[in-house]
């Protein structure tokens, strides 16, 4: 007997005396919890995102679409970055004003090569206000997972308000499970020393999030 059969057999025997219900899962219980916490307008949701990102030590910038290139260029310059990894599908305009040398995200790059790059700029798939989380799904403007991991400085651009949701349930609805996802809430941290949070371990130690306003943002209603 294979271990597969052995385990499945044990599980079936273990459940033989259990009450049988063939009710479909979604009818088996009600999801009484909230879809989001509190009532907020669009602007308040974006403010909450900014607040929660900052609370977990991400550096938050806000600008208009017109100022984005200058903002990013300023951040890279302030950091003194000589090189920056760029996902292949990133809007080239975002880095138009940056003088930093661009390194394309390539399959052939080794982790050691990536380790020598100073910064990375990406977009994101969705951002969650209640938890201060940005989610990357490996889309063309976000690149391979490792490019936002190995360099020590990550600049992530969130288009507000359309990429912002309030809650974890709303984020999951927008995401495709088939894609490799990385949920990021602040720079890497640890609670392993005396159960107290310290920022800065293996992932990027500096996370800068740019909330860039689309033209329509102020007109969108809840």
């Amino acid at each position: 007997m294979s271990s597969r059969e052995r385990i499945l057999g044990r599980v079936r025997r273990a459940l033989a005396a259990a009450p049988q219900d063939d009710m479909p899962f979604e009818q088996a219980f009600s999801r009484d919890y909230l879809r989001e916490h509190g009532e907020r307008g669009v602007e308040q949701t974006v403010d909450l995102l900014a607040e929660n990102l900052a609370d977990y030590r991400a550096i938050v910038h806000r600008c208009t679409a017109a100022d984005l290139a200058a903002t990013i260029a300023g951040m890279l310059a302030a950091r003194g970055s000589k090189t920056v990894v760029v996902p292949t599908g990133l809007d080239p305009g975002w880095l138009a004003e940056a003088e930093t040398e661009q390194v394309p995200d390539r399959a052939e790059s080794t982790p050691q090569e990536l380790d020598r790059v100073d910064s990375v700029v990406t977009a994101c798939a969705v951002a969650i206000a209640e938890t201060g989380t940005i989610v990357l799904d490996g889309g063309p403007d976000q690149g391979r997972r490792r490019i936002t991991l190995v360099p020590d400085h990550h600049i992530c651009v969130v288009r507000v308000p359309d990429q912002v949701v309030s809650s974890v349930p709303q984020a999951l609805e927008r995401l495709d499970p088939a894609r490799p996802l990385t949920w990021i809430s602040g720079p890497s941290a640890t609670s392993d020393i005396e159960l107290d949070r310290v920022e800065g371990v293996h992932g990027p130690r500096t996370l800068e999030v740019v909330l860039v306003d689309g033209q329509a943002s102020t007109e969108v209603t809840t």
Partner: protein
Amino acid sequence: MSGTFVGMPVFPPPAHPAFPQAAHEAVNNPTLRGNLRHATHTIRAKRAKAVAEVSDWAELREAGKRIKDHTLLHLDRYLEQVEESVTAAGGIVHWAADADEANRIVAGLVKETGESEVVKVKSMATQEIGLNEALEAEGIRAYETDLAELIVQLGKDRPSHILVPAIHRNRGEIRDIFTREMSEWGRPAPEGLTDTPAELAEAARLHLREKFLRAKVGISGANFVVAETGTLVVVESEGNGRMCLTLPETLISVVGIEKIVPTWRDLEVFLQTLPRSSTAERMNPYTSTWTGTTDEDGPKTFHLVLLDNGRSDTLADEVGRQALRCIRCSACLNVCPVYERAGGHAYGSVYPGPIGAILSPQLRGTASEIDASLPYASSLCGACYEVCPVAIDIPEVLVHLRERVVQGGPVTREGNKVVLKPAKGHAAERAAMRAARWAFARPGALRTGQRLASRTRRFHPRTLPGPGGAWSDTRDLPPVPAEPFRDWWQRTQGQNGGNGDRGAAK
């Protein structure tokens, strides 16, 4: 099949003293007591705050419980679905009935790659099966990359907490371990390393980075496996998880069969309750999800090893199976007054604390001294149940397992129904319980005893000799009153009140 169980556990329990003996040393170690008190009290207050932020905590907790219960009651179906969906996404699924088999599978897979070292994300399942030791025996070196695991590995120590395995170490001790041991394993600790947590974290970053960058094989567990999509989820803080999950060419994930949730949507519950319960954060810094393999992003080969190792036996017990709902958040450890004073090592298992006290004796059986003593390692105060994000009634299971220890009875071991004999060493207690039951069933007998105690009260000491010293070594006994209440009652109100020695009728 049925028979009297002679004591072969699913995997050998450690030669470990019973809990009270093991706890004795920890209780009297002021450094350890101080470290544990500081850490658990810090996280306790933070968790309460993080939970209070979400107004629907009770509903999330109930949903988590129900999702897990539903999954467990249809686990055969969901296991098959996981196999199908992971395979469809490009993963390779293996089944391991016990620790030995899981270790054999993983060692074999590593050898196939031709590599002799692996990087590991903290995983309770691989600790449970002793994977590192098994790999070492095959000439494969496993590097733990979680900071706390690194502290434990470098210190040749044992983990003492589910989330923070080095919780028993304070910053000064960690500095000493790093300074002394890092050079043995790779890049030495920086000169003049101090004990500030930020510097210690930096030292770990530097020490591990070269290992991450050259690693060809990563080994992980998973917090969740989504049956409908074949997605695995790892929740972490440091980024070591992301390193192990994305940089190597081969990824091997060893996952207990109870980690399944049916649908993608179910994550909306656990990704809210787990971070707040474990690190007391709205969200942990990094969560990775992956479904099979992705072209040109991350590992080219992905193996999922589904691990039973006593879980299906636990599933067979209708009271005990709720322990399989556990999402390993460790909130119960952090609020447990017994854990705080006894420390994690006293539990003799990779699963310490209240959840360990109900998991270990189910996964391993109750044959060993330590496993038979674990159900008693609790004052039944209920703080664990109160904070559990999947509402495991730990006190209920503890009492249930106490029954198993003292009364014996039917259990399932390695898939077979067996009948346990009552454990040895409880004979005197059993006799006392029976005698007490006999006396309590006869109010007259109780009264005779009470009166005898009252009449001889002048001679009662406030301390006791022999086994009674367990009480009176630290606590004085209350003085015996001149008369029991019932005598007073009968003397003063018996005529018009109580209804004598028998019956409720009035």
